[in-house]
């Protein structure tokens, strides 16, 4: 999608449709990396696009590509949902994704969710990180964004993102290792949490 079109998706159905078609699979995968419940994933997918529609006029192309912007929205939406779990869903959503699931959709949705099991483990392990650090780590490690894209999505400067990423990785490693008698020791941790490009 051309960036100059993005600010129109809130009021131009054609622009929205192009944006949606380009991103719906990516958004669903994004959600599946965090959520293992089909209905909830469908609701969240709807919420993310609704939020994008509402927030389209705030898109600032200088801050990064549309996809990074959308992932930033997606991340905040999923995180907010995680916090309010166990409670009534806040308010009535204009579009309820789970009501749109047909029998034919189930296999594809479950396959997507199954494929992302490992990502969800990592996502859960990030639970105790500070929010700002977590944001950058999620976007880089789970979603494959570059550091500068993750910075754009999280609304921070690249240098801040880099610092946070570094901290988050260090903390997550410690977390995954569990309590250790030695505060610091050289670690060769799993592939996906290794430092990269920072």
């Amino acid at each position: 999608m051309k960036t100059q079109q993005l600010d129109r998706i809130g009021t131009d159905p054609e622009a929205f449709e192009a944006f949606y078609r380009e991103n719906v699979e990516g958004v669903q995968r994004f959600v599946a990396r965090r959520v293992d419940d089909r209905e909830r994933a469908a609701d969240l997918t709807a919420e993310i696009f609704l939020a994008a529609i509402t927030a389209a006029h705030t898109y600032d192309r200088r801050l990064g590509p549309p996809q990074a912007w959308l992932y930033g929205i997606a991340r905040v939406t999923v995180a907010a949902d995680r916090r309010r779990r166990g409670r009534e869903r806040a308010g009535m959503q204009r579009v309820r994704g789970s009501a749109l699931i047909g029998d034919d959709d189930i296999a594809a949705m479950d396959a997507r969710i199954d494929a992302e099991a490992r990502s969800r483990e990592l996502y859960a392990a990030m639970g105790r990180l500070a929010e700002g650090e977590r944001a950058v780590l999620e976007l880089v490690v789970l979603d494959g964004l570059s550091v500068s894209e993750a910075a754009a999505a999280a609304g921070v400067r690249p240098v801040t993102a880099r610092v946070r990423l570094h901290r988050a990785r260090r903390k997550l490693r410690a977390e995954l290792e569990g309590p250790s008698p030695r505060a610091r020791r050289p670690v060769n941790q799993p592939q996906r949490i290794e430092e990269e490009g920072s």
Partner: protein
Amino acid sequence: MNQGQDQGVNFEERLLAELRAVVEERAAHAGAGAGVERNRRYATVSLHSRLAAGGGRRLAPRLVFGGAAVAAVAAAVLAVSSGTDDTSSAFAVEPQGDGEVRVEISSLSDAEGLEKALGEAGIKADVNYLAAGMACREPRFTPNSGGGGPERSKSSSSVRQTDSGVVFTITRSGIDPGDTLLVTASPGPEGIGDMLSVQIAEGAVSACVPVAAPELPPGAVTQSSGPQNGGPQKGLSQSGG
């Protein structure tokens, strides 16, 4: 599973149809002030968030603008890091190449520093960070009585929340030499979300006199609605939080 769904159409297509309907509805209302065109009035949006166990995260911002002609620079709850472990600055003022100035506030400290930085960027500003539950006594300036037609909206600003705080952009050409950017913020009750209001004041501005902030229910929108000499801000309306 669900009745009434078209055969041969999958979830993605059904969702698209629903969302398109939302966009079409919005298109029908476009021009009715859904944006955040700047004027010399302001709206204050309270975006109270819930406190998470570990400390003060907020929900996604839900900016709600009421009224048509008066929408302006808005305000948002600021997620203030109580902020010990973050070395980044409390704010950033970044002039962009095109005459805009991007302002990011990540914690409610160093009001003077922000004021100075804005001044260096060519924007006269008055920044006040107040104690919890406090606000500046209104009015602090006399709103433009010219009706503030849309043609005056040469500067626009939207306030959006990011992971690190609140970001807004000011267009320098939209601020006349006599104007002052007023930034006022205070921690919300019980730390559940902080109020940040951004206004562009025309003409003389009186100093901030801290008074107890009016109670704002979640999602409330206050909006000044025209020149009022000495009177309180009118026009409190509530939106479904």
